[in-house]
């Protein structure tokens, strides 16, 4: 696996036409995602939330860069490690926190929880707990786009390195290729499927090669460099939207947080985790923004603080909301 260093990554953003507004939007989203997940982690550690959650601390650039390159009408299927994807697609942190705290005002009315955060109203078909399922369903929304002749719309699915070994993922890539669907496959390779390192789960760890048999273009990029992610997905979106067929982008990153709340990190060393903390995508992006005169340290600090405040407020909001009524239990089983 070739993951570029943060220094090289900063260079990758140069020469691209990205507005200051969009750069700062990505900064805001990455900070919202990081704060949201750290806050959720803290709430879980205090026993204030039931169920489980899958955090993607350290992977924020993949969601922020990818979704910044999309248009609001694009369909997005997220992963079960998808809080940052949901935030970047535009779900309010208030309704997300309310969902995690199982409230009536949760984005899924408290019936989905962390693993199923979704909002079809903004074309975010959300987190799915079964790996591989999102890829096959993503082809369905892509098929609908194609059938309706919608020219400036694509369907994107995030999936992990672990899911790249699911049969459904392969079936989905084949179908998208043979039907030339506007599907963009985005593999967030965080190097572990739960505790199993990718080298134990695949003979060749270059996941981008999996596009070859389907004659799909593929890119393998530094998923910790939000600008490289943005630029790659922008190009990929243009390719997919032009009707040339699907494409695969592998965003190589690292999950600093454990797999879920039960993770004791027995399968990796502290040194390994520390080395990746140094490659934190938020730190790298800060360096880029400051060095290129896009924002001052103070401005970035202020925005980061505002994000932290928004998450605090989201917790307060969620706690102020009632739990769903038992009278509502059987609603929405059938349309």
């Amino acid at each position, binding site marked *: 696996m070739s993951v570029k260093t943060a220094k090289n990554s900063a260079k990758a953003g140069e020469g691209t036409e990205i507005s200051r507004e969009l750069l700062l939007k990505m900064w805001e989203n990455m900070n919202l995602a990081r704060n949201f997940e750290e806050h959720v982690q803290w709430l879980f550690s205090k026993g204030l939330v039931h169920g489980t959650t899958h955090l993607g601390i350290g992977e924020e650039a993949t969601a922020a860069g990818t979704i910044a390159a999309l248009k609001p009408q694009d*369909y997005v299927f997220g992963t079960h490690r998808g809080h940052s994807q949901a935030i970047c697609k535009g779900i309010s942190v208030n309704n997300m926190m309310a969902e995690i705290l199982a409230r009536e005002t*949760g*984005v*899924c*009315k408290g*019936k*989905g929880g962390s693993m*199923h955060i*979704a*909002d*079809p*109203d903004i074309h975010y*078909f*959300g987190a*799915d*707990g*079964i790996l*591989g*399922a999102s*890829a*096959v*369903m*993503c*082809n*369905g*929304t*892509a*098929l*609908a*786009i194609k*059938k309706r002749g919608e020219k400036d719309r694509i*369907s994107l699915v995030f999936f992990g390195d672990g899911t790249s070994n699911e*049969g*459904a993922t392969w*079936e*989905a890539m*084949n*179908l998208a290729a*043979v039907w030339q669907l506007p599907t963009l496959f985005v593999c967030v390779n965080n190097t572990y499927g739960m505790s199993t390192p990718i080298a134990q789960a695949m003979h060749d760890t270059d996941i981008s090669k999996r596009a070859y048999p389907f004659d799909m273009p593929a890119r393998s990029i530094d998923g910790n460099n939000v600008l490289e992610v943005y630029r790659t997905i922008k190009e990929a979106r243009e390719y997919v939207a032009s009707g040339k067929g699907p494409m695969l982008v592998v965003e190589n990153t690292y999950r600093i947080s454990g797999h879920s709340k039960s993770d004791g990190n027995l399968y990796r060393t502290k040194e390994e985790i520390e080395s990746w903390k140094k490659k934190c995508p938020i730190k790298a992006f800060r360096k880029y923004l400051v060095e290129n005169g896009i924002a001052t340290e103070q401005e970035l600090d202020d925005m980061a603080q505002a994000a932290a405040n928004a998450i605090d407020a989201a917790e307060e909001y969620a706690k102020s909301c009632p739990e769903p009524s038992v009278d509502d239990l059987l*609603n*929405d*089983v*059938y*349309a």
Partner: protein
Amino acid sequence: MATMKEITYAQAINDAMCEEMQRDENVFMMGEDIAEYCGAFGVSRGMLEKFGKDRIMNTPISEQAYVGAGIGAAMAGMRPIVELMFSDFMCVCFDELVNEAPKMRFMFGGKVKVPMVMRTAAGAGTGAAAQHSQSLEACLAHFPGLKVVIPSTPYDAKGLLKTAIRDDNPVMFLEQKTLYRTKGMVPEEEYTIPLGVADVKREGTDCSIITYGRMVQMSLQAAEKLAEEGIHVEVVDIRSLVPLDTKTIVESVKKTHRALIVHEAVQFGGFGGEIAGQIADSDAFYYLDAPIRRLGALSCPIPFNPNLERETFPTVDKIIAQVKSLL
């Protein structure tokens, strides 16, 4: 009185799909070998010529891929009809049928619909042995969010399928492969049949046979023979397992005081247990003059040998014997 015509069960299904595709451009069909080949049972004959390859779509042999695509397309507002060649193949895409299609709406807070029909050929009697002959409807009926329909006549097949295609939920439409070539009268005019309404196919006073699918015809044959002996059996065709018309079942049992449930699926753990439970839970219990009886397939994989295959399932003789044992 409506003008009637005689058509096959397969043609009734074909007619229902053609009418709905003409009526709604969001309806399309996909499945394995459904275009030029017209499906393994010839159900989609003529549809490629009528609607073209963009609406009659051959898929790769990838059940997860195309059933999943059906779900996604439905979530995006289309109305896909997905044909699974044999119902046994649902095991290859069980995730899509169990964890995805029926759960999306509830899990996502009621913000999405999955108006997809999965049509598939179920049942034995063709010498196709253990992996191409099963009746797996009880599994599907077990998942809230799915509807499960099993028609027994051309009339029911057409009317129920049209309703299923217009339904905003995932509907599992289990066709009976040995009924495809059977004929029946169907109105020339358009009609639909609501899901969840049982049909009393024969009225009687001595015993209720509650059944569905291929076993309806067999139960009617048994009823005919029993009538010759002065035993009057009522045959209730439930037509859909979900939603289930418990009311009609209960009323019938209260009238006849006896209940025999017949289905082709394996008796142990089959849907007959649910029907028996519904009767036992209702006030029909107090009207019973005999235990509730079930008759389904023996607990074995379906054998190839025709004699063994026949003996695996309910037969007219077995139904007659069971009815008599309740009197």
